[in-house]
């Protein structure tokens, strides 16, 4: 299932090590009514080291649940979640997570936010500060060190969140619809910047989104999930050349072709999910 190798990988012929592997994973939640709600059913997914994997699926299809299983925030009901060949038992140090909503600490300045990770992990203050300044420069926020998050725009806060995650140099970066709260133009710009940043440390990325265009523009492979309980419906390798400019790649013929193919797979699931939200009371238990 592995697709494009990292461009600078020393021996492209060698099999890339697996970063994330989900084997037959099922996740159930207790509902307030006392029942069980199945979010994931028998889900299998593999992401290679350095691979950018986008996960698309209809609303409520358990995309976020997948991420919380990989991050170790939650444990699967059945099945196995492996990160770098080891089963996940808790929150691993090699994980980075960019949340859908703002999760930067509003009472910390931009600099303190970015250096939070290294500080939590016991790096000396001066070193953490230097690293944080470095990452702020990389995300284009030099000069904003002393601002508080509420003084920044949504796009800038997202860049703080990115720097905050990437400073820990995670081997695995999980992103839960990170740009969904941004306006369309800012989104495309942020996506391009994300690719540039990704290229610096090349973590394996699982990027959850409901925006197919975004998914294809960013990823090495796109995974389509079924309407909940989610399982993998299809996997599409994306072999568009890198580096890509998100704003422009969508006009290429290969992109359009891929879009058609994936949409074909996604459409039915979207319709199923939509039908459930409109016909009240007929949702499966």
């Amino acid at each position: 299932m592995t697709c494009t190798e990292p461009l600078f990988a020393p021996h492209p012929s060698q099999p890339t090590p697996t970063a994330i592997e989900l084997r037959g994973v099922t996740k159930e939640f207790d509902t307030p009514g006392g029942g069980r709600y199945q979010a994931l059913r028998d889900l299998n997914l593999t992401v290679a080291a350095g691979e950018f994997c986008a996960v698309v699926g209809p609303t409520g299809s358990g995309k976020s649940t997948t991420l919380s299983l990989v991050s170790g925030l939650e444990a699967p009901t059945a099945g196995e979640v492996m990160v770098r060949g080891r089963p996940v038992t808790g929150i691993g140090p090699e994980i980075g997570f960019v949340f859908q909503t703002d999760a930067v600490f509003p009472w910390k300045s931009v600099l303190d936010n970015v250096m939070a990770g290294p500080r939590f992990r016991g790096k000396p203050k001066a070193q953490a500060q230097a690293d944080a300044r470095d990452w702020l420069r990389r995300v284009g926020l030099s000069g904003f060190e002393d601002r508080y998050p509420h003084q920044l725009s949504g796009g800038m806060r997202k860049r703080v969140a990115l720097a905050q995650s990437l400073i820990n140099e995670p081997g695995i970066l999980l992103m839960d619809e990170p740009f969904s709260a941004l306006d369309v133009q800012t989104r495309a710009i942020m996506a391009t910047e994300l690719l540039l940043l990704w290229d610096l440390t090349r973590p394996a990325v699982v990027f959850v989104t409901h925006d197919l265009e975004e998914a294809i523009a960013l990823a090495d492979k796109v995974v389509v999930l079924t309407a909940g309980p989610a399982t993998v419906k299809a996997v599409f390798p994306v072999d568009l050349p890198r580096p890509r400019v998100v704003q422009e790649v969508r006009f290429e013929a290969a992109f359009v072709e891929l879009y058609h193919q994936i949409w074909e797979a996604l459409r039915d699931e979207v319709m199923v999910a939509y039908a459930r939200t409109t016909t009240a009371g007929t949702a499966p238990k």
Partner: protein
Amino acid sequence: MSETDLLTPPTGTPAATGTAAPSPQPATPPRSARDRGRRHKLTVNAGRLAVLVVVLGGWELSTRLKLVDPFFYGQPSKVLTQIHTWISHGTSQGSLWQQINVTLEEAALGFVIGVVSGVFIGVALGRIRYLAEVLGPYIKIMNSIPRIVLGSIFIVAFGLGLTSKVLLAVVLVFFGVFFNAFQGVREVDRNLIANARILGASKWRVTKEVVLPSAFTWILASLHVSFGFALIGAIVGEFLGAQHGLGLLIRTAQGTFNANGVLAAMVIIAIVALVAEGLLTVLERRLLRWRPSQLSGPDL
């Protein structure tokens, strides 16, 4: 890595921040608008003064015209005279400053102990579910007791000195702060906690650097009311049995049918409470600097 430098915008340009932060431009509003603002302030202040004159003047007038018996209801001018007498000649229990000092000391001690224990236990119960489940009902029961009655027990057990008043103040302060801290901890954004944990924070670091600052808004809100409670605790304690303090002053005045004395002590307590409230507001502004100011929005 040079390509990423392209991302760097010219730092600190107002254009880059313009959308987010209403940059504090010293934009001088047109003259008419500024005049209007000044006139508005003037009318508000004039209105406030008018209310004061009408209330106090009406009171003074009606007592002088014997519409109201000043023996029962006091008289503003006599209240002022009473305060003046206390300041220049001292009270029957010693100088006025000593009384204020004693009461303030009791209230402040009670306030600090009550707040610290309230925050500590509130956060502990908010973070440790088991503790909350075990102790929850007892705290509810204790909260429903009219705690002011405990003052009598404290006087009997600890005597007329400082301890009994401080304890009463603590008991009154604790619950307000406790419930706010507890609720504040419960309301912390789950995303923020998840983020901190993934960034590598231990449970203790999460409490210290995410939960506490986040709950601070709640805790600070309770502090305003709490200092008032601390003062009430100290004064009621003194009322029930003491050798010094403003509460005793009130009781003495009551015992000699001196309505002006009671009111004068009340005025002094009000001034003390207002000063404390002012200090708390300053503290709040400093601690909550990170919050967007809510004053800039339209009046709703």
